[in-house]
């Protein structure tokens, strides 16, 4: 009876080792890597990846909507009410 804790611990460790060993085969973490600025920004002279962000009124604005209508100036302000 006293060794029940030992067996619970052992089973937990073995199960976790099994998960550890098999999770790489079944799942790749890069599929959930969030795109940060360096990976999303593209190169100088290249084309920006398309995106949709809310404007000052909260309406969604998509970059590709403005393609072919002339030059596009993108500005990002920290806040417009300061």
């Amino acid at each position: 009876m006293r060794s029940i804790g030992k067996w619970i611990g052992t089973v937990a460790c073995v199960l976790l080792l099994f998960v550890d060993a098999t999770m790489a085969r079944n799942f790749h973490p890069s599929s959930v890597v969030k795109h940060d600025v360096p990976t999303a920004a593209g190169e100088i002279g290249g084309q920006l990846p398309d995106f949709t962000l809310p404007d000052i009124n909260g309406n969604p604005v998509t970059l590709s909507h403005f393609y072919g209508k002339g030059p596009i100036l993108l500005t990002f302000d920290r806040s417009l009410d300061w």
Partner: protein
Amino acid sequence: MKNHRNLGYRMLSGLTVALLFLIGTALLRGFLVGTVMPGSRAELGPVQTNYWGFYMMGFAGAALWAWGACLVWAVIAPTSARTVGTATAFGLVVNAIFRLIAWFSGEYAEVHNLPRIEGAIMLLLALGFIWLRPPRITETGLATAQERSVA
């Protein structure tokens, strides 16, 4: 005559103590370099964090030192300090789970499988602490002369 009882448990505890003090020292050094000597942050290499991150590094380093200090007792008097090994096994399993979740999140993809490898090592160490743990004194009726002297 030399006492070789619980030698595996003592060696495992000693190895873990060394690792805890080493990693704890590195974390405390990171806190000092990042906070007290901010001009030296380049020495920290890939660690990119702010003052709150350095604060947590210092906290974790101090906690690892405390953990290592407790585990020293398992090296000196393994039978008396068997519960320290149990607590260490529990801490290692929790740390392994946290690393598996960290790997799963994808946020640490730049270090590839390092969290998984660390987790596996911790689980193996935990198994060692579970199976090499000495029996209770009441189960054997024995204790080393050194343990009787410190009890």
